[in-house]
């Protein structure tokens, strides 16, 4: 099969919005950027996040109160030690009665704490999972509400990452990070309060020793975040190299590039390894450093407590309790340090998810939709203009009238706007200016279910769902049965082809339909369209080579499918154009010629040029 377009080949440029670009798996790694949400920005994320997830608000206060109780429970042991030592032991003889009472009460409280912690934890988990479930499903639904103008090939991987890796990062955070933040924050405050009650002087000593930790931790964490950011870049770099090697292995071998590839791969892996070690320095240093500071604080507390304790009114029990409290004070700080990176990643992902949710759907369905007339449908475009997002105009004012029942071929170079035009007719996006009328009704006012049944586009790439041939055909009409699918196959004369498949109609098509050839995927897509019995059929012809047997089946199926319907074909074959009632020649967003094949050839314009070059290539001998 040859392309009808002489100037440029297939694929690429503006019309690439239906894919073709390989989305590398490493795209998933693009989950965060540090800019924009640091510092006070975290609060902004939380505010937006709370607004977007109603599940998060329910019972938040109760959960927080219970977290407070859990943190307070951790203080029970130092408190009991203090009381036992001060009241039970040190005032002369040992008062076993008091000791029994105190430890008994503490043990009871610990048991209560266990149940409390259990309930809290379960609440937190449930809330988090409900939030994540809601967020994921809503974001996914929202992505499907966005028009094709948003789903460009270059953004495909990024959008998928919103509902996969971004949500997973949030989940990881919810499981560890978020709990750490809540409990740790509460714990730091609670420990500080107890310390102050025991002895404000000793509390001050503790704080003073810990003080230098803050700027050090801050700068260390900055370095750590940067180092991990670089590491992530290295990881994607390695992955890109590996992916290139794997995909290009045929070329690499046939052209003797193996050792060059090996050198590249080893270099990438080594770079990743070195950056890993660099990032690891922080990981190795931070915790030991804070541990040493914590010990220094205990040493300072003991020295000053022993020396000035009497003057400050500190009891022996309080001083002993301080040694335990100091541990409880520094632990959450280090814990927060450990989850900081995870928190950043999660918040960055959350922010991006929220951005998706805030993108207004640009195709809005009417509240009360109009019905379309029965039978084949005419199409009229009035002053049609279109641009993708901020891009240049792709369509620059089209006025087109297609009578009901006509068969129309749309031709033009890649980027001339022909595919965009048919996408607007299928309402995969709305025009920037002007309107499209189908059956004399503005498409924007048509009931969506009506539209989907009556206006059916068969896209070029023949994407199929990972199930059987039959199932894929039944997707053509909601509620279609296996018998309906069989009817559609028979109507298009595809029985022989289906019978030739390994398991007939129950043959699995594989991921994206890739177990079938390109041509076979198109056959399934045609049967699917037949099932819908649309009044307006839009075909985007494939350009890639199809083997001859399948080609014949395709020709026949196409002819039968278009019978009795208005058909608009983005034509890549001459035969389609030759047969059409009307040919629309697109060039740079305008229709530059329109008419029948013979007339256009005779006119000696753009179309005749296309035709000449095509003929020349096949009939020169």
């Amino acid at each position: 099969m040859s392309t009808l377009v002489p100037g440029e080949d297939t694929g690429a440029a503006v019309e690439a919005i239906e894919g073709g670009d390989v989305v590398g798996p490493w795209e998933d790694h693009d989950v965060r950027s540090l800019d924009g949400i640091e510092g006070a920005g975290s609060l902004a994320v939380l505010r937006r996040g709370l607004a977007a997830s109603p599940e998060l608000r329910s019972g938040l206060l109760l959960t927080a109160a219970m977290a407070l109780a859990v943190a307070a429970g951790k203080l029970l042991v130092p408190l009991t030690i203090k009381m036992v030592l001060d009241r039970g032991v040190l005032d002369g003889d040992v008062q076993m009665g008091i000791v029994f009472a105190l430890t008994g009460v503490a043990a009871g409280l610990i048991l209560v704490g266990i149940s409390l912690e259990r309930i809290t934890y379960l609440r937190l988990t449930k809330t988090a999972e409900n939030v994540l479930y809601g967020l994921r499903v809503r974001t996914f639904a929202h992505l499907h509400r966005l028009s094709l103008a948003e789903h460009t090939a270059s953004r495909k991987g990024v959008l998928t990452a919103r509902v996969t890796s971004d949500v997973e990062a949030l989940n990881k955070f919810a499981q560890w990070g978020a709990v750490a933040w809540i409990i740790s924050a509460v714990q730091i405050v609670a420990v500080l309060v107890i310390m102050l009650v025991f002895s404000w002087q000793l509390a001050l000593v503790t704080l003073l020793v810990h003080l230098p930790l803050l700027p050090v931790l801050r700068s260390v964490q900055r370095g750590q975040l940067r180092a991990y950011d670089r590491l992530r870049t290295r990881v994607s770099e390695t992955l890109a190299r590996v992916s290139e090697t794997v995909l290009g292995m045929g070329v690499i071998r046939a052209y003797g590039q193996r050792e060059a590839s090996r050198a590249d791969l080893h270099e990438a892996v080594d770079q990743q390894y070195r950056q890993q070690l660099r990032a690891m320095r922080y990981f190795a240093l931070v915790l030991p450093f804070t541990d040493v500071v914590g010990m220094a604080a205990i040493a300072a507390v003991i020295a000053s407590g022993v020396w000035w304790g009497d003057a400050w009114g500190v009891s022996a029990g309080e001083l002993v309790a301080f040694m335990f409290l100091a541990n409880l004070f520094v632990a959450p700080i280090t814990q927060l340090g450990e989850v900081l990176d995870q928190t950043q990643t999660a918040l960055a992902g959350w922010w991006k998810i929220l951005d998706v949710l805030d993108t207004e759907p640009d195709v809005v369905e009417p509240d009360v939709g109009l019905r379309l007339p029965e039978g084949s449908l005419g199409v009229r475009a009035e002053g049609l203009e279109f641009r993708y997002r901020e891009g240049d105009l792709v369509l620059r004012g089209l006025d087109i009238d297609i009578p009901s029942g006509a068969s129309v071929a749309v031709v033009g170079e890649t980027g001339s706007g022909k595919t965009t035009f048919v996408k607007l007719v299928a309402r995969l996006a709305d025009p920037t200016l002007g309107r499209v009328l189908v059956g004399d009704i503005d498409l924007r006012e048509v009931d969506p279910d009506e539209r989907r049944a009556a206006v059916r586009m068969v896209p070029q790439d023949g994407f199929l769902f990972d199930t059987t041939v039959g199932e894929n055909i039944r997707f053509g009409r909601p509620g279609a049965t296996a018998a309906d699918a069989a009817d559609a196959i028979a109507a298009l004369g595809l029985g022989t082809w289906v019978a030739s498949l390994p398991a007939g109609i129950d043959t699995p098509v594989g991921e994206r339909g890739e177990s079938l050839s390109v041509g076979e995927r198109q056959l399934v897509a045609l049967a699917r369209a037949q099932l819908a019995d649309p009044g307006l059929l839009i075909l985007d012809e494939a350009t890639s080579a199809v083997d001859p047997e399948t080609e014949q089946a395709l020709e026949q199926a196409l002819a039968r499918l278009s019978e009795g319907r208005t058909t608009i074909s983005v034509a890549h074959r001459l035969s389609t154009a030759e047969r059409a009632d009307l040919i629309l020649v697109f060039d740079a967003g305008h229709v530059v010629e329109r008419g029948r094949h013979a007339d256009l050839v005779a006119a000696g314009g753009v179309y005749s040029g296309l035709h000449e070059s095509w003929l020349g290539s096949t009939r020169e001998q």
Partner: protein
Amino acid sequence: MTDSDGTGSTPARTDGIFRRGGRLVLRSFRAHPLPHFLGIAGANIFAVAVVGYTVVLGRVTDELILPGLDGGGVDRGTALAGAAVIAAVGVVRGVSMMVRRFFNFTAVARTQRTWRLAILDQYLDAPLSFYHSRPAGQLLAHADADVETAASMLMPLAYSMSVVALVVVSLVSLLVVHPLFALVALVLFPVLAVLNQRYTRSVEAPAARAQAAVGLVSGIAHESLDGVLVVKTLGREDAEVERLAEAAHILRVERVEIGRLRAVYLPFVYALPNLGILVVLLLGTWLVGQGSVSVGDVVRSMALFNMLAIPMEILGFLFQEMPRSVVSMDRLDGVLSVDIEVRPADPPPVPASVEVVFDDVSFAFDAGPPVLDGLTARVGAGESVALVGATGSGKSTLFDLVAGLMPVTGGRITLGGVDVAELGADGIPDVVAPVFQETYLFAETVRSNLVLDREVPDAELDRVLRLVAADEFVAALPIGLETVIGERGVTLSGGQRQRLALARALLRQPRVLLLDDATSAVDPVVEAAILHNLRVEGGHTLLVVAHRLATIRLADRVLFLEEGRIVAEGPHHELLSVPSYAALVRAYEGATR
């Protein structure tokens, strides 16, 4: 890309998880003994320092705190000395912790590098048939997620290796104070260990199910958003959301279950040491009353119990990671166990002008049906020959064999009298240049894609680009030859890519040029011009697979393939008398119409 093939795809092994986990650890240890050893040494010193710290606390209580606050007071020197000892122990603790973390992580990172390089070398050295049964995504997952996961159980390794020392030293320390305290610990340690193990075990199943659900969710998301155009044209948006919601719900249920188990076990695990402390406090005060222990002894024992939970948790991590790591390691071994391709050391010289001879050539994938079946043919030096045959007749396979990408399973192919098998992977690229229909260009500059590792003068580059009608569009690129293409650069159309691939082949001045539908996406007019140029250029033996009549006619001779054999050969017009050939060519003609 983590969940390309989920979990549990490995066949059941007779060996238990622990044995396989142990072997994995040994492998890493053997490859990088020094960092592992230092990490474990650091961990053990840390364990001793932790217990040592509690001993110091006891002494400080008895000799500083009690006399200082309740007794007659202590002198400044003693107080400072006590503080200094605590600080010193703190430094030992910190440094040993640092050593443990640093070297353990170094061992993990080095292990990852070693395994990753081994996998990638294997990718480069395995025969090309290795790629036949393995999708690219899976190969990427091996090099990335599987290496990472296989090494993940090494993260808590050094710490775990100090748990024994910690337990023993702790027990001795308690026994020295009072046998009753040791008894409390002897009750507590096993309970903690059992709880941890139970928790780890109970979480295993839902964790595996959750992992599978993550794969399911991401699979649906990828499929649905990849096929967004089809979803929209079919109006299946709601059905797709429903489908994702179902999978997401399964995931939620499993995750909540994991959370519930955690809520059941972990509060106990955290609270048990505290309960132990209370018991020690109660027993201790009683013993203090009896006069058999000091207050400091009690404090020291309580401080020890305070440290107990963490190492138990670390052991828990180790056991939790072990099954995942072992499964990933199995996957890596599946790759590493593939025999590498044999590459003859000294390829014999090949004459300047090459005749290609197929002598009873057969080929089959593994145990599959034969793709080529006793194919015999001769292509003269400098001749141009078209291969024609229906889909599946073996044309592309024949090319792969000539290019040495796969070995023949029977017969032999000679290039200028030299067997392709003797030339090997290193000799063939100097003789043969294949151009495939699916062109692969690297995400680099146009220039480096064309010259690969060779030095080519600009004049020669220009000449070849003109030959394949690529000079104009290359000149029109933002920075011409230096423009980066692909993923991070300019997107080229299929026809442009094919022309660059053709130029890449010609620049190597191959003695045999193989074109497998290599101009299918190029406009017919341009294609005709290119093929004309190729004939004029000459100097090579040309084999071409074509679907266009124009291309077939350009060849001196046609080899007609059916079911892996040559059924007819000769000039195109002569072959038209063969009915099946004529039918096929007519179909091609129809397809282009």
